[in-house]
């Protein structure tokens, strides 16, 4: 079991799922019958990336709470790593979303609730790193970052909800309550891609955590030898 969740194994599993998901999406799932047509295929990547970005911020939220409770720097490291990856995935959401938008609405950018929310999410978590960069003392930096990660994560769904007060958007609502909106073959391709993307996040978190730990150890060693 332990072998299955080591970083290299996770990378391999993620890669396998993502490739299978892609193959299924293109050759097993039918071309979308609605106006989306072939451009709908990007959905098998776009939506899993979006979901994974939110999972990453969720991990950071939990890590922040655990940090505030224990003051253990391991949780701070997990927080930094997941926010960084979440930000990366959010940027990918925006890029894939823009590509889809160009194909579907013939516009690179539309002020559409979901896209707009993700843009705001990007700004929020960039602010997380700005905040970290202006606090010198280590423990205080970790504490403030944790407080901000908690507040930011609470704010994301509220912002999304608030965008409903704005005029109607263009984004296709694929999955609404009680209806997955997809036929079996599409759903299967989608779920496998989603699993793959989540595994990729897990693999990246594991790897980055190792890097951060090494960084901290190097810093400790440097200060011991007075470098």
């Amino acid at each position: 079991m332990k072998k299955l969740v080591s970083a290299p194994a996770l990378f391999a599993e993620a890669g396998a799922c993502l490739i299978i998901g892609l193959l299924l999406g293109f050759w097993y799932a039918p071309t979308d019958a609605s106006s989306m047509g072939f451009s709908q295929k990007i959905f098998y990547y776009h939506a899993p990336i979006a979901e994974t970005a939110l999972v990453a911020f969720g991990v950071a939220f939990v890590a922040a709470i655990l940090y505030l409770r224990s003051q253990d720097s391991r949780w701070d490291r997990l927080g930094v790593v997941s926010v960084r990856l979440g930000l990366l995935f959010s940027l990918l959401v925006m890029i894939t979303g823009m590509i889809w938008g160009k194909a579907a609405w013939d516009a690179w950018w539309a002020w559409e609730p979901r896209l707009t929310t993700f843009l705001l999410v990007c700004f929020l978590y960039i602010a997380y790193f700005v905040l970290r960069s202006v606090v010198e003392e280590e423990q205080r930096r970790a504490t403030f970052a944790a407080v901000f990660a908690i507040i930011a994560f609470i704010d994301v769904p509220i912002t999304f909800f608030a965008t409903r007060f704005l005029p109607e958007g263009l984004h296709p609502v694929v999955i609404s309550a009680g209806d997955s909106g997809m036929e079996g073959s599409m759903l299967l391709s989608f779920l496998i891609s989603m699993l793959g993307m989540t595994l990729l996040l897990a693999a990246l978190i594991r790897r980055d955590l190792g890097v951060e730990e090494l960084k901290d150890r190097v810093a400790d060693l440097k200060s011991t030898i007075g470098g």
Partner: protein
Amino acid sequence: MGLQQFIAILRKDLIRELRTREMLISMILFVLLAMVIFHYAFSVGESVDLTYFTGGMLWVTFIFAMLLGLNRSFAQEKDERCLDGLLLCPVDRVTIFLAKTVGNLIFLLIIQVVAVPVFTLFFVERSYLGDLGIFLVILLLADVGICALGTLLATISMHTRSRDLLLPIIFLPLIVPVLIAATAATTGIFAEGVSLGSVAARLLFLLGFDAVFLVAAYGTYDFAIGE
């Protein structure tokens, strides 16, 4: 939480401000200047009707004015090391948070007492006396959210190296939901009049925002204000 302590801190902040009035005067001047700036910036021709921009103009002005005020309200505490003294007193941190939030709320309300009539005179053609009750509720609900979140974040930013530079970057993305809901409701009142039923969702949303962030700040303020 001690009511007496709450009143003492609030009283101190009010007296200090009313003696110098430097924060209030600059905030009021800022708000009035912003209106003039808006007039020039949006004067694109006779045919353009600004009515549907009024809600947005009003709330953008208040949020930016609050940024000015929030920076001031903690700068003095920090510069004269008053905060250290305050933290040495046997006062619950949450009491400090509530007193600071209510203090900021009072200042914001004073600004609005001056600014709203002037704004109405300048930009609003419709008489909204019939909707005044709803308008005041929107004002109060949005103000509480702005002040609660603002006080928490100003407490964090005051402890950092870049202080007033950091606050807008962490505050603005988080306050967007309030901006959306308050703007939509206010524009409705200024432009065409509303019934309680039509803005009820927005009022509930603002109330929910206030409740969520008051609780979140309650839970994290200990960590934000430091040892």
